[in-house]
């Protein structure tokens, strides 16, 4: 009668509590995995948003678009060359590492820095249309990871030039 031990009820309570605790822990890990994916997606949205703002800011105050020419037919190109607000010639293009790169050609010609600036990583497409002289549409597409089944996210923006010199 003096033996120490667990009653069936106590064990049942301990098992139930342990199960709840285990469920919580596994839920936390599952949630962490999901939130990692969400954070990555938020990161991609953030990159898309920031690069889109940077590009549209530069274009909005640009005095001239050098390439492509205005084409009301809706033809699209993969690069754009323009003069920025400081009248430097700037080109935007995708490099072979799927990075959207800004090339400051004036700095290159005058041997100043910076020449290349990476705007976004993991960018699978950059398309530009110029339906009118002072109007540009561009579309950025990024991929979540290198997996073929990974999701793609795109952002389209359009800009009217405010500072065109004629």
């Amino acid at each position, binding site marked *: 009668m003096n033996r120490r031990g667990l009653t069936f009820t106590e064990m049942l309570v301990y098992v139930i*509590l342990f199960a709840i605790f285990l469920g919580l822990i596994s839920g936390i890990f599952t949630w962490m995995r999901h939130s990692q994916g969400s954070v990555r997606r938020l990161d991609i949205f953030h990159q898309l948003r920031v690069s889109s703002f940077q590009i549209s800011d530069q274009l909005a105050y640009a005095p001239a678009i050098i390439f492509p020419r205005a084409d009301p037919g809706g033809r699209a190109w*993969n690069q754009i060359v323009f*003069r920025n*607000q400081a*009248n430097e010639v700037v080109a935007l293009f*995708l490099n072979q590492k799927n990075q959207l790169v800004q090339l400051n050609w004036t700095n290159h010609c005058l041997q100043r820095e910076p020449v290349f600036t990476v705007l976004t990583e993991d960018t699978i497409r950059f398309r530009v249309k110029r339906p009118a002289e002072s109007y540009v549409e561009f579309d950025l597409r990024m991929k979540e990871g290198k997996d073929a089944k990974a999701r793609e996210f795109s952002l389209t923006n359009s800009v009217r030039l*405010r500072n065109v010199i004629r």
Partner: protein
Amino acid sequence: MPSASPFAPVRGRRGLSIPIAIIAGGLLVVMINALSFYSFQEMGAVKSILARKKAEYLAHSGLMWAYARLCRGRWYQPPGNSFGNRGATWKWCHLEEPDLSNGEPNGSLKVWFDEIPSKHTLKLPQGRGFLKQLDHIKVLALATQGGEKALVYGKFIVSPEPILNSDSTEGQAADTPLEAEQGEEFGLEIPKVLINAGEEGGADESKMQVIEVRKAAGSKVKKGEIIAVLGSYFIKPYRGLSTQRYMLKAPYDGVLKGLTLVPGTDVAVGSRYADFKRDPLQSNTDVTLKKMVRITRIPLAIHQGMDLKVIKNRYAIFTYVNGLTEEYVRNYASVRDAASSLENVFEDAPANLSEEEALRRLGAGRVDQSADLEGAGKTFVNDLMYGFSPPGGLGSTTRREFPAKSEYVLGVQPSEISGELKELLGLIGPLHGKNYLDMLETKPRKNPDLYKIASTTVYDKSMDGDGISRKDKKKGTDDYIDDMTWLQDGAKAISVTLNEGTPWEPGPFEDLVAAGTIKREDYFFWPSKNGYYHIPSPDRVQIKSVAVPYTYENSTPGGTETGEKFRMRVDYLMGYFKKHYDEGVINPPADELRAEDDISDTPQAPGPPDVTGARMNGISS
């Protein structure tokens, strides 16, 4: 001791379930809070970005609203100008708070206008003084939306420059030296007949018929209004009135005096048909270019905490923008021909390029870092001249083709002095030991191609050779613009005054000579007047070389709102280009109000008119 009942509580034994539950619950709460915090932070960042964008768009709307209103005039100034509205008080600056938020809550907009005077002035006739002119108007639009602020700067430029103390943004052209030589009152002459022998046969070059007279003597006219309609005569293959019509138009705003045309009668080509008195201020120019340029978003760090109602604070913003100007112009001029060499650079490029491939396609660029700010400015202005098309609704194809139809027309066309003056110069020249008729030669007479130049390339070469003025470091942009506008020795202004003695008919002349009252050698005989005139001293004969400006013309449809040909004097057009970057003098006024122009009510010059007819004038070009 074991308890008696199996249901009695077990004392003395401790468990971990409650602490574990508390720790697990705590960890869960922390993680949920972290995720919420991150999400809300992200939402907050997006909300802030959206509010900042809305504020920026609202500021831009304010700038465009200001542009549309300024194109119509300066409503915030007293009516008229300081020449016609004496005693009015004019403003240096003005604040408006338009409601453009379109129902968006928590939005507000303030727009400031600051007028910057030009260094040019308009000379009033008869020495009555000068009128100051307006260089440009600086516009600041401050928008607030959802707690975020955006400040945008714009510069409203106008060319030709309007009168500063006025409510107008229409350009006020200054007199050219030729117009100043011509004076306020001058004669209007019947123009030459245009010969079109190939189509209509030979025309009578000596006279025309007055078909219709639309204005009466003494009437006020506006520049370009038709005064009368004339018709020319055929002489072969048959005689009679041709279908060709000549519209005599008022050359300026002014008053028509002493009109001698009568419908149905003939008038001699080159004869004077009316006197014209030009208004001291012309109400219009052919066209005024207006544009909002240098639109710049001012970083928050520059204007945070600034009260923009204070003039000095606004001028601090203008000083910041001025600091960007040198970089703007130098970057443009440092790498030449970017637009033409890069316009097809990526035409057939693949979707992905290496950095090396991109640089290879763009090329090395034509670098020119030798220019200082003035040199860079001259390059900038010169380039814009080649690619000019007016602001407005031209289609992209029309805009590309507009520069190809550029023409430059000299401010005078071939013209002769009157036969009478020519005869006079021929008579007194040998008496002075000079060939006055040879001295009438002008540059365009020697090279008739100078009267009209049909391309910007040829014009640039004619006026500036291989960039002599543009590359001359001693010459600023204003000097370069003058060199590109004015053709030196474009015309000759001739004036002969015969007031040193009374003219005599032959009979009385011989009597006076015989009586010893006058000496024969002091006089010359004028055959067409059949009289003897006292030989004028050489200083009574003036043949002055006059610089004549070129006017840019372009007949591309759509160049002007009225459908007329686009026309603007070259210095006004190049001044318009210069205003794209030149911020002018950044000197804040002491007060918001300014004094009016100093204008004399009493004419100071040139003195009483010549009522004896002793003075003969002419322009030769």
